[in-house]
């Protein structure tokens, strides 16, 4: 399943990585090299094998329902590149 530059461009958009068109062919070649390697797996017979969910035998622990966190708006926004009136700020999103 060789990746076309179009597919790479689409995957880059899904990943939100700006890739210049000039870089696409080289990147496609790199990714195809890796995909060629991982496609060895198709040779393994996995009929009837359940996919591994976790290496741990444990199951999910349930937390007690109590408001124990929050009330730290200052700390939550302290690292933000742009903030205003306690909000995070981004370019206007049009719906």
């Amino acid at each position, binding site marked *: 399943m060789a990746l076309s530059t179009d597919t790479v461009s689409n*995957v880059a958009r899904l990943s*939100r990585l700006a890739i210049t068109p000039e870089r696409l062919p080289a990147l496609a070649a790199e990714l195809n090299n890796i995909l060629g390697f*991982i496609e060895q*797996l198709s040779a393994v017979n996995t009929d009837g094998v359940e*996919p*591994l969910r976790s290496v741990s035998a*444990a199951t999910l*622990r349930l937390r007690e329902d109590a408001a124990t966190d929050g009330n730290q708006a200052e700390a939550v926004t302290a690292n933000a590149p742009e903030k205003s009136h306690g909000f995070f700020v981004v370019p206007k999103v049009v719906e």
Partner: protein
Amino acid sequence: MSELTALSLTAAAAGIRAKKFSSVELVDAHLSAITAQNPALNAFITVTAEAAQQAAKAYDAKPTPDALLPGLPIGMKDLFCTKGVRTTAASKILGNFIPPYESTVSANLAAAGAITVGKLNLDEFAMGSANITSAYGAVKNPLKANDDTALCRVPGGSSGGSASAVKAGLCLAATGTDTGGSIRQPAAFCGIVGLKPTYGRCSRWGIIAFASSLDQAGPMTRTVTDAALMLRAMAGFDPKDSTSVDTPVPDYTAAIGQSIKGKRIGLPKEYRLDGTAPAVLAMWDKAAQALREAGAEVVEVSLPHTAYALPTYYIIAPAEASSNLARYDGVRFGARVDGDTLDHLYENTRAAGFGAEVQRRILIGTYVLSAGYYDAYYLKAQKVRALIARDFSEAFKSVDALLTPTAPTEAFRLGEEPKDPVAMYLNDVFTIPASLAGVPALALPGGYADNGLPLGVQLIGNHWQEETLLSIGAVLEQAL
């Protein structure tokens, strides 16, 4: 190395308790070593000299000799969030991120008396096997081959800063994290001890995630006993990590010095790969012989799906990483590169903030999860992963531990690393299977290559059998 920086963690603890030296003296000796050597090694991204000196003074003023690591200077891989101290994951994208919280493992270590002297360099987001993908520059191995004229060897990765600093005496021990070999392979390259515990043994809370189902923190030390001591301080149940397992932490040091007579050790035949350096194979044989001489029974075993571990890993790890790294978007923390729309802001920020290897893995991970490919790649990989885990559980029905090489070669020269990413991935061929199965593995020095550089040997145990590994490891350490 000065007298103080040459001490093992265990010996330093004894010295502090016997008041042979103070914590301030110990910390200062290591800070001096950092000042002297870090410019060449680049092992530390951030040195927290002032905080460390204050902590040492505080320790000396009110000593707690019963603590596991009383006033002992250690290094912290810069993947552990440290409250009030910049944490970078060796990536530009985190910018000047200052965590408002402390990771559970680093907090456990502090509670055990350890003093962090700084944040250690690594491959960006722990993705790499040579510590050359760091946005803060490559780390150098403090060891030279016989024919090297200057420091020019990679320390391995991703915990390359940790391995380099421990070997060079810049700290008594360091934390590492291991996703596919990131503790064990650099330990092998730098000639130290590294332990990847059972998945669920050390809390992942506050450690910047690479691949959540594989990431596990562990100690990097100069001796097996030190690894036992440090693991005891790091490990423990953490209700904040849903994958942390609620099982008591034993005194791992009690395993050291126990007889291994009658233990059954397996040599997985699939690990005898074509192209492995003859010196590595010789070291492996010698280690097996040493165990036989100590009374262990050494047998050949089979892990039939070993060959598929690497491709399985290079689906699962990038898939999880592509999702784990989506949060670095320039909105709530970290660096931002503006854009006229929100999507352009994301794309610009992430393109500028992530390095080439990280971008490559994000793209692969996104692709293998995308519509139409999920079953062929990700689901298939999780099925093969189940087979690999089953290989181990079958093997551990008949043996107590497995003995393998840690890495296929000794440390290579910076700039002479494989340029093909796939060839680079092969560095982890011996370490990845245990990561996929979630079982513990201990890497320790096993011998030397012809050029004098160290080679690593690896012991792999069943889930929660860290003590078995440590007792066998201590025997090997004595013998080799």
